[in-house]
């Protein structure tokens, strides 16, 4: 049990929906969600496929724990070849969609081909139907979710959809579920749009069971206690959200500012968790209304925010005056520090638009930052930007571009190319702060060295959620390492990468690992799933998944030359803060990492490694 043991295969070209048994042999090797869906993608598609061609597949996948009462066990992922990167993409989302998919009786849904006209998929347990989506095409994720529920007179439907950004080919479009949760990165929403698939709406009432219920309840209960008693998961995240990091990372001297030109932002405190809790002048209420949980989550780091009604962005627009998903640290950084903007309401508004039209605030914000640098350098002028004064620090430019990008219009469509293509287009490729085409998240690798190796080797392009060494280097979890040192980081990154692959593949949230070690996670997986899921086997599974993803990227045409960082991080020393004078010492860490991984000096897994991992 734990797995539903059932897959739904939807061929959009032919308009057929069929269910088939889950390959349990693969489940035993790749666990679920990220690992298992990647295995299906590897087996069923050509890694060289154009991400936007009908031959690419898009898989929505749950993990074996998804839908159980384990804390945070409501996650699902979208796995495909990424539109932004051309690399393996796996974007993870919370909310309540994953649980519903599992309850409908599916471990995953595999979408193939391309529909002739826009459609959405309606699932009610075994009843599955592709329905014409023309009435929702061209509208936002908010309108689509609301509209589908109303049309079918079923408020209990859970919906994942793309906004106009995904339809218009914005390279970093996401798939948004439950209004403000998103499978955010790498352009998985762009792939969904290319398939003419507007939404998936699910109602599932079958229930989820586990293999050894008494052992599972015991392991889950002790896991919940660990989360409740931990300072980060029990107090910091519920009270301040991930935004608890804004001031911390700024003081660490690792807050990339103005397209990584600086490493500390003078306006950080204006856009921090503390600022979100500060009552505003107009109505005496703070930006942050309350915290919120995803399915089954006992941490509840989610933010629910409102925008100051007198703010220019929402003044005569009541539709944006209601509460919605507020700023997480990554969004606050990308929309704020990366552009030098310190207007909290403007950032909240831009974040609302990202959810409404379905695009990734990290890649969007970072791309705006690159455009602002090109504007200040005179490479871009108001002629190209359609009159927008793209200056660092301009909240108006940010919010205008958010609206334009969400609709794929004007200069917003160019921002929608992502920083790599945009900077190449205007002859300044070095200004794209990205790896494998994906923009950096909110940690500067000159100030946190391990993150440099994390980014360079991440299988989905620059990403903090593949090995969050910030936990060790800044927060001291599980043990403190020096953020300015490169020694020992290869092993650290590798351990984080493998463990994270396990957490993702199980259907749990990676935030649990602030408190949980494998000693807490292992018993929950082992009790829920048939088979031997000892910690040793789980870590081998994580390493297997990592190497499988690596092999996919190598087959797609990536090489060790892509395991690098922009010259700015390798050559331009940090100007201020504890890391002043430092560059990222990737050259010291990378060879050590290849060796620790059992890869050749060219970064290719050796036969010995592949055999050891049964790949």
């Amino acid at each position, binding site marked *: 049990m734990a797995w539903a043991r059932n897959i739904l295969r939807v061929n959009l070209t032919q308009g057929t929906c069929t269910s088939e048994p889950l390959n349990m042999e693969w489940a035993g090797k790749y666990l679920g969600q990220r690992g298992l869906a990647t295995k299906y993608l590897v087996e069923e598609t050509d890694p060289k496929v154009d991400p936007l061609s009908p031959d690419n597949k898009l898989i929505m996948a749950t993990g074996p724990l998804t839908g*159980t*009462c384990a804390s945070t066990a409501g996650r699902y992922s979208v796995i495909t070849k990424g539109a932004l990167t051309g690399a393996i993409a796996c974007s993870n989302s919370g909310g309540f969609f994953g649980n519903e998919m599992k309850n409908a009786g599916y471990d995953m849904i595999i979408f193939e081909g391309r529909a002739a006209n826009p459609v959405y998929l309606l699932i009610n347990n075994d009843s599955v139907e592709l329905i014409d989506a023309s009435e929702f095409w061209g509208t936002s994720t908010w309108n689509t979710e609301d509209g589908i529920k109303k049309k079918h007179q079923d408020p209990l439907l859970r919906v994942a959809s793309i906004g106009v950004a995904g339809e218009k080919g914005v390279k970093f479009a996401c798939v948004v579920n439950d209004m403000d949760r998103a499978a955010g990165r790498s352009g998985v929403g762009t792939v969904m749009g290319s398939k003419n698939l507007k939404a998936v709406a699910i109602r599932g*009432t079958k*229930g989820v069971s586990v293999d050894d*219920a008494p052992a599972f309840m015991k392991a889950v209960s002790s896991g919940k206690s660990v989360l409740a008693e931990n300072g980060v998961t029990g107090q910091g995240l519920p009270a301040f959200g991930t935004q608890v990091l804004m001031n911390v990372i700024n003081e660490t001297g690792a807050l990339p500012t103005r397209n990584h030109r600086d490493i500390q932002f003078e306006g950080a405190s204006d856009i921090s968790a503390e600022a979100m809790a500060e009552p505003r002048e107009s109505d005496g209420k703070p930006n942050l209304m*309350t915290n919120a*949980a995803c*399915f*089954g989550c006992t941490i509840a780091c989610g933010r629910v925010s409102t925008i100051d009604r007198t703010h220019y962005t929402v003044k005569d627009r009541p539709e944006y005056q*209601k509460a919605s998903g507020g700023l997480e640290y990554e969004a606050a950084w990308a929309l704020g520090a990366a552009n030098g903007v310190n207007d909290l309401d403007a950032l909240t508004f831009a974040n609302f638009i990202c959810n409404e039209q379905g695009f990734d605030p990290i890649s969007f914000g970072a791309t705006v930052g690159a455009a602002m640098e090109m504007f200040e350098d005179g490479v871009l002028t108001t002629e190209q930007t359609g009159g927008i004064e793209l200056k660092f620090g301009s909240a108006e430019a940010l919010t205008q571009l958010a609206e334009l990008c969400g609709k794929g219009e004007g200069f917003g469509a160019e921002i929608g190319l992502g920083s790599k293509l945009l900077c190449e287009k205007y002859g300044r490729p070095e200004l794209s702060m990205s790896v494998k085409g994906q923009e950096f998240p909110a940690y500067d690798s000159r100030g946190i060295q391990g993150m440099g190796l994390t980014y360079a080797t991440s299988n989905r392009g620059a990403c903090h959620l593949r090995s969050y060494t910030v936990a060790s280097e800044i927060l001291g979890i599980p043990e403190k390492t020096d953020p300015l040192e490169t020694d020992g980081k290869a092993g650290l990154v590798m351990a984080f990468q493998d463990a994270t692959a396990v957490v993702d593949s199980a259907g749990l949230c990676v935030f649990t690992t602030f408190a949980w070690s494998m000693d807490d996670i292992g018993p929950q997986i082992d009790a829920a799933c048939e088979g031997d899921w000892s910690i040793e086997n789980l870590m081998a599974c994580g390493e297997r998944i990592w190497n499988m993803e690596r092999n996919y990227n190598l087959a797609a045409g990536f090489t060790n030359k892509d395991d690098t960082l922009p010259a700015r991080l390798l050559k331009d020393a940090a100007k201020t803060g504890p890391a002043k004078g430092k560059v990222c010492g990737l050259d010291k860490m990378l060879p050590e990492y290849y060796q620790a991984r059992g890869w050749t000096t060219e970064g290719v897994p050796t036969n010995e490694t592949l055999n050891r991992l049964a790949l």
Partner: protein
Amino acid sequence: MKAGWLAYLVFEMCAHFPRMSFNTGYNIMQKSLSIDPGKCTGCLQCELACSYDNEGVFNPSKSRIKVFNFHDQGRYVPYTCTQCDEAWCMHACPVDAISVDGATGAKIVSDTLCVGCKVCTIACPFGTINYNSATGKVIKCDLCEGEPECAKACPTDAITFVDADWTGLEKMRSWAAKTDAAVQAEA
């Protein structure tokens, strides 16, 4: 010996039929679920615990307690049966399938007697008794024989199981704190 037996009988009656003890002046404390929406994060652990206890699987759609998300207002509100004394569902049932659990005061549905006519679902003013198409019976909160799983599972104490006569105690306490003007003036 005889007196002892009588005392035992009275004790048993009091324990199982608290209403009968009304006249005797003796009562065991009846408890109620107390819900504080302000503390709810919408995690649905209550629904998971409820469905697991009643159905043996994790299945929010079969939960007797439901959390409502008023998204645009940033509010989460758990809602379930409040165990009315003069329960509409109980009075409406044509086959007397709903009875009072003497120990807890909960209104309990007998699956043996219930014929699935759903009249109770119409009679209940609050919508907290519902039909389960999988079994052909109605389902509602039964207070888990006095140890409600939802309250145990709630990570934020939004759902607690407290003295039925004092469900307002915490609210009174917080208002009391605000009302003591003298202390506030000093602060």
